């Protein structure tokens, strides 16, 4: 029974990772860049939600919505100012720029809001749903539900809408997509907008679970979600979902059964083993070069 409740907790944490990883993977799939500033967009989202909830006393949904709007604008602005001029540059240059943006956001947050940790108000009731012998907290339920909803909407969007099709075309071949009349720059902007919006949702769920808000809040979840995205096969949306969930489950199980301190090491060790067996992640496409 204990195992089952760990599994469910893992699913909850994994859902948060999955939502962040979806943002990572979409940006990678389309812009072919590792957006290391993604974690810091989460941090900004967390601050906005915090201020909306505790200072402006806005209702939860409105607060989250506000955070989504701010994060989306932030994501698109970052893309326009810092990444767009580097479309032709090497991926390493873009990576370093992303790191610069990450430093900028972290230090900007420190200046604006101070280094001290702010306590995120508890907004989701602490109650739990008793199901047979185990109890599932409402928070976990909501988190998993939100993650499933996000995944469902995203899949529909990618597969059924015109913009979604254009996105898939861009991820295959930007040059060919442009020749077909797709506005590639616009598609990249939309991708960043969606990824950043998701980051704000993840920020709320993350802070509801671990209720502290501070400038480097996004770093570790960012790295974990990046790991999750690679785990599932970077660029693949179902991969990011699966990778996020599995990472969360592995992390919670490692904490419960092996060691809390070594849980990170175990998570990364599992990642390495998976990549050795499947060098492009669980659902990633095989890389091959035509000779």
């Amino acid at each position, binding site marked *: 029974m204990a195992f089952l409740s760990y599994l469910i907790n893992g699913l909850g944490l994994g859902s948060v990772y999955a939502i962040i990883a979806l943002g990572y993977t979409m940006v*990678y799939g389309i812009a072919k860049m*590792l957006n*290391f500033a993604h974690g810091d967009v989460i941090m900004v989202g967390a601050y906005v939600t915090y201020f909306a909830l505790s200072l402006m006393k806005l209702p939860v949904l409105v607060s989250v919505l506000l955070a989504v709007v701010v994060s989306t604008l932030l994501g698109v602005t970052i893309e326009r100012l*810092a990444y767009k*001029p*580097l479309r*032709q*540059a*090497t991926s*390493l*240059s873009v*990576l*370093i*720029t992303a*790191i*610069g*943006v990450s*430093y*900028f956001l972290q*230090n*900007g947050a*420190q*200046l604006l809001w101070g280094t001290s940790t702010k306590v995120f108000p508890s907004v989701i009731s602490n109650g739990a749903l008793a199901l047979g012998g185990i109890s599932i907290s409402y928070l976990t339920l909501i988190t998993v539900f939100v993650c499933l909803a996000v995944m469902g909407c995203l899949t529909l969007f990618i597969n059924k809408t015109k913009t979604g099709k254009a996105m898939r075309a861009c991820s295959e071949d930007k040059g060919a997509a442009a020749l077909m009349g797709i506005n590639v720059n616009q598609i990249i902007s939309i991708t960043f907008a969606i990824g950043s919006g998701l980051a704000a949702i993840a920020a709320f769920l993350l802070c509801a679970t671990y209720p502290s808000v501070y400038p480097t809040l996004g*770093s570790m979840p960012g*790295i974990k979600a*990046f*790991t999750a995205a*690679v785990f599932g096969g*970077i660029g693949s949306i179902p991969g990011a979902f699966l990778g996020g969930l599995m990472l969360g489950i592995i992390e919670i199980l490692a904490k419960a059964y092996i*060691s809390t*301190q*070594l849980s*990170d*090491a175990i998570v*990364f*060790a599992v*990642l*390495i083993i998976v*990549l*050795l067996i499947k*060098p*492009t*992640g669980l659902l990633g496409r095989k*890389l091959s*070069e035509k*000779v």
Partner: protein
Amino acid sequence: MMKNFFSKLFDQKLRSRTISYLLVIIAFIILQLMSSTGSLSSLLKSLLVPVCCYTVAAIGLNLNVGFSGELNLGQAGFMSVGAFTGICVSGMLASMITNPVLRLIIAIIAGALIAALMGYIIGIPVLKLQGDYLAIVTLAFGQIIKSIITNMYLGFDENGLHVSFVENKVTLASGGKMLLQGPMGATGTQRIASFAIGIILILCALTIVYNLIYSKSGRAIMGCRDNRIAAESIGINVANTKMLAFIISASLAGAAGALYGLNYSTLVPNKFDFNTSILILVFVVLGGLGNMTGTIISTTVLMLLPELLRSLQDYRMLIYAIVLIVIMLVTNNAFLQAKAAKLRESLIKGKKGAKLS
């Protein structure tokens, strides 16, 4: 005949090499002079050894990223291995070898060797992967190394070494010494690092990398980077070649780490986290891939920059971030580059015009 051959062998290559050696030596002389006349602030003085350490680690990483073409996000992990190896070796030898310089050199060599060994072990799985997958695995290994050292307790007494993980279960005979104490890292380290050894280490690192690059190994390393399939078609074993670059890079980071560790009385494992790996990568990319002189300059400038901006207090890291972004934009964007070139041209023209009139 021999002389002719030498000049032919190095011709164009000699120049960049000489420039980097001279740069290091001149910097050393100037800083030593300033130091002896007391015109060096204590803050700047305290940065001399760390700058040397990061330069060596960055030179190593440049071999990996610039010449071998593999993104490595775990260089700090190798520095960490080297640092704690160096501290432990120095701690164990403290009573046997009293000459600090000799002990420092042994510690640095030990740090380099253990880091090279780690590089080899990690390289076996890592180098099977490609591109961003390889990058994430180096990141993962960096995290694992940090995690392990954070949870490692190591003591030393007359019966030898005692290790335990997660909880401190090490019991030592009287006269024994704790070398590593989990998240607290190493404390009470004898500070034996010196700027002069740091400079010598940089010169050694430069020599190793340059000599390797202008040889069979260097051609193979760059060949595998430029075209993997072609390299295999002419009989170059890609895995072995990449491994060589990876191991040398790791061992240089290890040597740098040992020097770094012995420069402080306390060192926590968290010092060498993901951000430190990224920091070294930034030095390499801003200095220019495959450009050693550039690496030395960018490491020095970027390490001093936050200190020079100290008067701006809270804004300094923000400005640092902006500088980083602006440099990347200016050096990589064709439009901005054209603007910069135009500006330069008009400045030169302006000068010439002034002369004519």
